[in-house]
């Protein structure tokens, strides 16, 4: 009964010192909201990447060029298809390119592959046509039926000004925001057009190879038999690149957050010290009327738990609303490069239990650090001193 009484007393104190409680909870939200949002976005992007890798080809083949990935002849796709266990082999042209001052990903695929695309407004690109991402469309003010000029190469330089050979493509479709983070800055065209942009007719940047289940190793061996200059990347390898990349990003974020967190503790100490003289007096009164130090600390501990259990779920809720309903306005750009204040795609986010548990733990650390020590100090001096 004693502990229940102390819990009720703590609830009473939290509601009685409304301003102090609200300030502490707001501080917790301010500290935890970016943390929960960042972890959710990182997990979301990671999951989407993992799905992309999972749904992608089983093997990616390029040619070795001075120890780096080089282009591969398109006709090698037919050769590769003959290897036992290969179901499809798709030559692709993928490159980063600046269009209208914006960095985009140019993606060229055979027409029959493009037909499988979804999340599209408008139609699939025919010859001379392109499908662009929502981010590109917004940035360059493009819509279906409009033309987009893409610089192919510099012809000459006159008075230090480069003369660029440009080709014009008609926008036949736009990816919808639901198509995901990768489609936002994408320019999709058929592989022939992509070849002409880079003036590399007959070549692809890689060939995506799809195999029957369990044939991956055998197909890899078959590829090596075709050419010893093939560079082979399996799905597992691609997935491990993605995971290690995100884990590194996550690690950097956690490291930065640890610093921010360490700064937040003294800030919260100051905040929870808000009304400290009144609190010190109250503790002095309780001690003078026979309360033990442990009983005072237990009550303060319960107060910390109540504040933490209010602050952490509230932070989680704010973060969820912010990402799901406001699509991570402003905050998403802190974690996904180059997307601006208003993301042009649905920001991927996953709210997992672990960050939630972690945020409760962090809240507890913050509230306890802010209250237990000051309460202990007030409770261990003679009550007359605390009341002075």
């Amino acid at each position, binding site marked *: 009964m*004693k502990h229940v*009484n102390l819990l009720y007393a703590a609830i009473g104190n939290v509601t009685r010192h409304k301003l102090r409680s609200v300030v502490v909870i707001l501080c917790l939200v301010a500290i935890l909201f970016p943390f929960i949002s960042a972890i959710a976005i990182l997990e979301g992007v990671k999951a989407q990447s993992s799905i992309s890798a999972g749904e992608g080809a089983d093997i990616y083949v390029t040619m070795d060029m001075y120890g780096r990935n080089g282009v591969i002849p398109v006709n090698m796709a037919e050769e590769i298809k003959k290897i036992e266990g290969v179901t499809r082999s798709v030559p692709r042209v993928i490159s980063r390119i600046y269009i209208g001052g914006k960095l985009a990903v140019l993606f060229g695929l055979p027409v029959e592959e493009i037909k499988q695309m979804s999340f599209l407004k408008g139609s699939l690109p025919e010859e001379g046509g392109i499908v662009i991402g929502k981010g590109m469309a917004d940035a360059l003010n493009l819509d279906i039926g409009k033309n987009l000029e893409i610089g192919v190469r510099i012809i000459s330089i006159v008075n230090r000004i480069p003369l660029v050979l440009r080709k014009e493509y008609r926008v036949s479709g736009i990816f919808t925001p639901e198509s995901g983070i990768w489609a936002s800055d994408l320019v999709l065209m058929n592989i022939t057009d992509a070849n002409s942009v880079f003036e590399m007719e007959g070549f692809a940047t890689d060939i995506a190879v799809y195999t029957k289940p369990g044939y991956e190793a055998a197909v890899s061996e078959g590829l090596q038999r075709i050419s010893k200059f093939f560079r082979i990347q399996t799905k597992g390898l691609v997935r491990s690149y993605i995971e290690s990349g995100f884990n590194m990003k996550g690690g950097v974020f956690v490291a930065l957050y640890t610093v921010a967190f360490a700064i937040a503790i003294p800030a919260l100490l100051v905040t929870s010290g808000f009304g400290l003289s009144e609190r010190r007096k109250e503790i002095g009164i309780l*001690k*003078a009327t026979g309360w033990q130090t*442990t009983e005072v600390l237990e009550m303060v501990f319960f107060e910390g738990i109540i504040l933490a259990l209010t602050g952490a779920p509230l932070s989680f809720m704010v973060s969820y609303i912010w990402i799901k309903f406001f699509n991570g306005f402003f905050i998403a750009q802190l974690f996904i490069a180059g997307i601006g204040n208003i993301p042009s795609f649905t920001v991927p986010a996953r709210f997992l239990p672990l960050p939630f548990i972690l945020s409760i733990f962090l809240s507890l650390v913050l509230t306890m650090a802010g209250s237990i020590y000051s309460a202990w100090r007030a409770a261990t001096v003679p009550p007359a001193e605390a009341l002075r």
Partner: protein
Amino acid sequence: MNNSASSQQKAGSSQFSTSNFELRTSNSELIICEGVWKVYNEAKPYEVRALEDLSLSIKKGSFTALKGPSGSGKTTLISIIGCIDRQTRGRVVLDNKDTTGLSDIALSRLRRQWIGFVFQNFNLISGLSAWENVSAPLIPMGFSIDDRRRKATSLLERLGLSGRANHMSEELSGGEQQRVAIARALINEPDIVILDEPTSNIDVESIAVLMGIISDLKKNGKTILMSSHDELALRDADIVHELKRGRLSDN
């Protein structure tokens, strides 16, 4: 103590060791102070001696008053006797128990079981109602909320505050706040009731009510120690000690 049975019970539950005890209270003496000093900032240029080698004994069931000008050490002395402050040197014995070297836990138990303290400025907890203030000492003792409310309300009624139990402490007059503070001091049924300058913050009518309450407490066998410089309040005391510059002038 009120009777020997209750004294035995309290002594048994207080868990204080009385072994190696040199100074013992006699049957009639409940409180003994021997050579008590209270020095602030000792051995520093701005040292303040609030109490100097003060010795005093108080009989069970008596009404003892301390008088003296401001700064004479009245509050310091009753704070030390009430176990809410510690002396620098000397000994304070409460019912054969030397409080000098007691731990924080033991002193808290002593305050809970033996002493009711009424502060000069009442020290009620703001934002709590009268009954909540009165019952605050019962919270860690495991009383249910209904029991606490019943006990507190009953005590407030006895002190003439029926109908004010649910009022916030800030809504009460000075005299009413003082009676709430007295009720809080009495809620644990202590043997010793200590009042620090109880007449300084209340009007004449309230002083009359207060003296009636003190008279009732005395009739119920409580030992009362009060500091005051109000002659009206001192009139009913059995013994009046005068303090001057931290010493008893009648020593």
